[in-house]
């Protein structure tokens, strides 16, 4: 969790200020010792993240952690303040286009692809800014894979345009193939060949000399921890090794733009984490990534911006935390110290004159109190009030709705979260289209 926060936040800097070529240096993954609870189960809901949009952070430990993470980029010529990006952008469907200063590495407009009467893509617009990760989130059959196949020149669109690194998918497919890498359930390696031979072959196909292809293959094997298995045919690899080999194969050519089509589908949690780690490394190396996924958690973990698709249409887009903020309000979660019952705390809050705390509820099972956040001053007011009344606070944090909730809310398939009226109005057209 912690690592993602730093990650998202750093790349949330105004994109104009971001250097194009990032230093090879990694963002430190683990923050220095912090009193802030880091176990994901602390508040009982693993699905929720305890981030809060950056600029609004009130928790000193959290703030310190982020600043520390930014200063960890010692090699960076531009150091940006943490958390600026998230709030700088306006709300609404056009937010990315309107405010992004960065160049689009992938630019898609009005993309249409029909298979018979099935509209796999029904007018998709999206942008992936250089050096960022765009998550394309949607259920099975939403058109995610068709989108990736169009962008990697495997499928020709019926209408619309798509540019990748300045090349048009329709008119410049050859040039385009030079700058992309593809990892998906389908774009695979040769199962009969060993890991090493697969990578060597790809190096040769990418016009590396024999020597360079061999060296590059070894580098990739080492980097993806496959050196020991290098001689074995890929068919004998475990699921995780296989996926790592797929990733390695797509990285041989230093692609400027990388497509990851459901990279962790069908993997167990441990292997999934391995793949995530590798993806973060790739992004750290400066790749622009378009990631499709049906897992909210994956998008949350890896993406800077999100495009939610359903039935071939974009139904929502924006920064991850922004999107979450639009759908449901942030909540404050407080765990009282032993000896204080959550119910009493909730009652005390609800009865208090502080604005917006009327909705305070106790989660008995969890042992926490949840307070909807209406404005920022409320946080301090709540803490002060609890102190005055003599309640002890064991843990406190803010959380946004999980992407599961976001997705269900915007697709209208299951409105599990009370919706903010504003985004609902923004998206009404799309929702109608999607709900047919």
């Amino acid at each position, binding site marked *: 969790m912690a690592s993602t926060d730093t990650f998202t936040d750093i790349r949330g800097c105004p994109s104009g200020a971001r250097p194009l070529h990032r230093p*090879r240096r990694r963002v430190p993954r683990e923050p220095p010792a912090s009193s802030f609870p880091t176990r994901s189960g602390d508040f009982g809901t693993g699905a929720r993240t305890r981030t809060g949009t950056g600029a609004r952070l009130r928790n000193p430990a959290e703030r310190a952690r982020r600043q520390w993470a930014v200063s960890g980029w010692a090699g960076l010529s531009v150091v940006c303040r943490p958390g600026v990006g998230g709030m700088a952008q306006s709300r609404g469907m056009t937010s990315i286009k309107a405010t992004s200063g960065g160049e689009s590495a992938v630019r898609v407009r009005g993309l249409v692809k029909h298979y018979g009467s099935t509209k796999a893509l029904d007018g998709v617009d999206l942008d992936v800014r250089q050096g960022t990760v765009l998550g394309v989130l949607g259920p099975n059959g939403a058109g995610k894979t068709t989108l990736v*196949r169009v962008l*990697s*020149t*495997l*499928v*020709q669109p019926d209408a619309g345009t798509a540019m990748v690194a300045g090349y048009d998918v329709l008119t*410049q*497919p*050859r*040039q385009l*193939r*030079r*700058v*992309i890498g*593809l990892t*998906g*359930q*389908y*774009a*695979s*390696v*040769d*199962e*009969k*060949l060993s890991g090493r*031979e697969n990578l060597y*072959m*790809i190096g*040769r*196909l*990418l*016009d*590396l000399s024999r020597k*360079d292809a061999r*060296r*590059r293959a070894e*580098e990739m094997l080492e*980097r993806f921890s496959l050196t020991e298995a290098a001689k074995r*045919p890929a068919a004998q690899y475990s699921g995780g090794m296989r996926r790592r080999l797929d990733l390695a*194969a797509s990285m041989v*050519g*230093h*692609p*400027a733009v990388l497509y990851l089509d459901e990279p962790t589908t069908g993997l167990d949690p441990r292997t999934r984490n391995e793949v995530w780690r590798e993806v973060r490394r790739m992004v750290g190396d400066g790749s622009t990534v378009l990631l499709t996924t049906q897992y909210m958690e994956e998008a949350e973990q890896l993406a800077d911006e999100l495009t939610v698709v359903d039935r071939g249409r974009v139904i929502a887009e924006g920064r991850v935390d922004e999107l979450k903020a639009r759908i449901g309000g942030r909540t404050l979660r407080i765990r009282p110290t032993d000896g204080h019952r959550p119910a009493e705390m909730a009652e005390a809050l609800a009865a208090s004159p502080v604005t917006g705390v009327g909705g305070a509820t106790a989660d008995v099972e969890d042992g926490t109190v949840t307070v909807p956040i209406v404005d920022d001053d409320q946080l301090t007011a709540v803490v002060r009030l609890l102190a005055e009344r003599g309640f002890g606070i064991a843990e406190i944090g803010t959380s946004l709705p999980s992407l599961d909730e976001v997705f269900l809310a915007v697709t209208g398939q299951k409105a599990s979260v009370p919706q903010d009226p504003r985004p609902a109005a923004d998206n009404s057209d799309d929702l109608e289209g999607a709900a047919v």
Partner: protein
Amino acid sequence: MSTATITPPAAVRGARSEGRIGLRANLRHISALVRRNALQIKQDPESMFDALLMPIIFTLLFVYVFGGAISGKGHQAAYVNYVVPGLMAMMGMNIAQAVGTGINDDFKKGVMDRFRTMPIARSSVLIAKIVVEIGRMLVATAILLGMGFALGMTVHTDVLHLLAAVVLSLVFGASLMWIFILLGLTMKTAQSVQGVAMLVLMPLQFGSSIFAPTTTMPGWLQSFTDVNPLSNLADASRALVNGGAVAHSVWMTLAWAIGITAVTAPLAVMRFRKKA
């Protein structure tokens, strides 16, 4: 940590800004893919069984089951000289057929999609397949000839003519591969590719002069066997090994090979490019 030693992609891009793939690069890609197909065989030696065993089994079967009936008891040796050049034609076909199932399989496994998103000429994948299959055909032909010689075949002309016969059946076999590639790209499963291939192959092989002279066949069948390219090929290689007029059947075979390639190769490449 990794990139310092390798040519950066920008340089590669600049050198080939128009995106065309040059001849030398194309050859390099094809050789990398040939290597891949060869390694596959190394990894899965069973895939060579057809090339290794078919010539042995077929020669033994035809010489000893049909040889006596066709050429008279005790005259099997004469039949060897008749049937082995014909089997050379057939061998090419049977092996060419494997290319279709192989391509079909590659698409299933997803490795094709990787190739198709790489900056290589898409035909190079197909050409590499054909090169490897021609290698397999060569192996099968060598075994076939070895069997033939063991059973008493003699070359009445000379080694050059024998080689010419081998080359001719390879050329014709290669042209047939395009048909099977097209089939492999069109049909849904490898099994159906094989099924359809058998349906096409059986009448062509047996309705020809490969196994027996056509003179005893009814007129309608003779008119079929006369235009059957396999008859032409069998006649040509027989004439090249045993002596006799070669010109007509050789030219006819070459015309067929060129014709088949000219029609099916572009179709196959197009299908390969468009296959979703």
